């Protein structure tokens, strides 16, 4: 498996729907807010692709690190090596566990010191450009006195429910079972899951609606030709993505 040969390409699009309110902190104090929603320019609210990738990676790690459930492809036991095989790694990230190294060299076919991610997630841009941010206040209560703690008031802004962000995920040279691992990671958010910051304060419930899946496979010469010369990709049924057949327990 290497990137110098083109094997396939999937482009999956969807919409992330905010179900109550969402906060993605910009990491700095802005204007009057202690924690402002991240944005570019005047009203360019967005969710960084890295945030979504981090969410997805942590979900996948929950299934694979330490092989807690014994997920298998054929007779091969999946472990953290499969996370590295999808999300990439640099040499400093390689686990000391021999089983992980063994799995990794099996997936990649060779020992690489570093390996690029097969997954690319664009920044998720907000679909309604007229959306206004809303301020929420928080306060710390002293457990000893029951009263509010002086100076402990803080505020942050959120994007309110109903707003949608556009997700575009590109996968390159991906194996079928790796696509299934990604779909396992997305399983929770397809029915509504917690995402973003300030989660325990009542906000952050989001639901992903998959809209389309387009792909090209190098084995299909006709569609490969269409892709190279016209840039066309074939449509795939989105619901078919949810069917997991390669991975077993």
């Amino acid at each position: 498996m290497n990137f110098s040969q083109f094997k396939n390409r999937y482009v999956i699009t969807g919409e992330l729907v905010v179900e109550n309110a969402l906060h993605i902190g910009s990491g700095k104090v802005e204007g009057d807010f202690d924690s402002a929603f991240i944005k570019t320019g005047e009203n360019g609210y967005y969710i960084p692709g890295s945030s979504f990738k981090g969410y997805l990676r942590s979900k996948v790690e929950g299934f694979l690190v330490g092989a807690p459930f014994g997920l298998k492809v054929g007779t091969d036991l999946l472990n953290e090596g499969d996370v590295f095989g999808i999300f990439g790694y640099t040499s400093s990230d390689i686990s000391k566990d021999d089983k992980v190294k063994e799995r990794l060299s099996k997936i990649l076919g060779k020992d690489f010191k570093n390996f690029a991610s097969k997954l690319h997630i664009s920044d998720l841009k907000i679909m309604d450009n007229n959306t206004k941010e809303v301020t929420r206040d928080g306060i710390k209560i002293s457990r000893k006195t029951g009263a509010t703690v002086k100076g402990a008031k803080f505020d942050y802004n959120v994007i309110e429910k109903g707003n949608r962000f556009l997700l575009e995920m590109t996968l390159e040279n991906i194996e079928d079972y790796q696509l299934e691992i990604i779909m396992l990671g997305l399983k929770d958010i397809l029915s509504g899951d917690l995402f973003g910051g300030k989660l325990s304060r009542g906000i952050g419930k989001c639901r992903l609606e998959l809209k389309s899946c387009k792909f090209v496979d190098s084995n299909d010469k006709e569609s490969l030709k269409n892709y190279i010369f016209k840039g066309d990709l074939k449509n795939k049924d989105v619901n078919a993505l949810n069917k997991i057949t390669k991975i077993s327990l």
Partner: protein
Amino acid sequence: MFNVNKNEIKISLKITPKSPLLIKASDDVQEKGNLIQWNTTAGSKEPFIPGSTLKGMLKEVFYTIWYDHFNLEEDKFKEIPEGKYKNDDKVYDYEDYMEDVLKEKGEDIFLEKSLKISKLFGAKNLKSRLHIDDAYFEGTGKVEKEKPKSVTPIDRFSGGAVVPLQFEYTCDPFITEVTIKNVEKDELKALLFAIRDSIDGDIRIGSSKTRGFGEVELAVKTLQYKEFKNSSLTLDSSNFNLDEKKSLKLGEDYLYKVYKLEKNAMENFEILKKVVG
């Protein structure tokens, strides 16, 4: 702790006000005059109870229960590092100490030393496992705007009444959802105590609690329990129904099973006692 999938519980809670309930809007929203307004969403002006209010209320109850149960005495918030006790009088602040421990000994020791309440509700360096949604009206509830409740303050100097304060309020039920990841039995038991306390009339939320506002009763509407393969928490599942649609089956085996409990609220309290044990 967070990368491990053991189980997840989702409880749909009904919050019924037993006395007028008022969650004040922030100062930026309040109009001038004597009317104290309800908290609403900005776009659709829909009244809601923020999750942070509910989390604070639950934390208070859990704290009260666990304070005695786990001997969380005040001094425990100040830890004296081993070996430094005799030679050095320096007493570390709990959170600072935790940072030192984290640097020196790693995550496992940090988690072990963390207070139970922090492990559930989160603290500095520790993510909360409990999430509680903003609560919205269960059906077509409304905030009483036409006939607000009046409270007449007395001028302490003259002894005379001043212009009454008008409070918007509601008595209609709200609905919210509590999600706890990798829940433990103690946590479910404490949640039951919170429900029992609310039935006894001991729980108040929102503004003007000392003026008789904010008494609420909690009731479980539905309960969903997701249990991963090899999970360690065993609840009495005789009262649950397996939800095949939400469970995930890979080949012959389940990666996780989702159970559902759907009964009337008060009945659920009794069933919950059985389930939790």
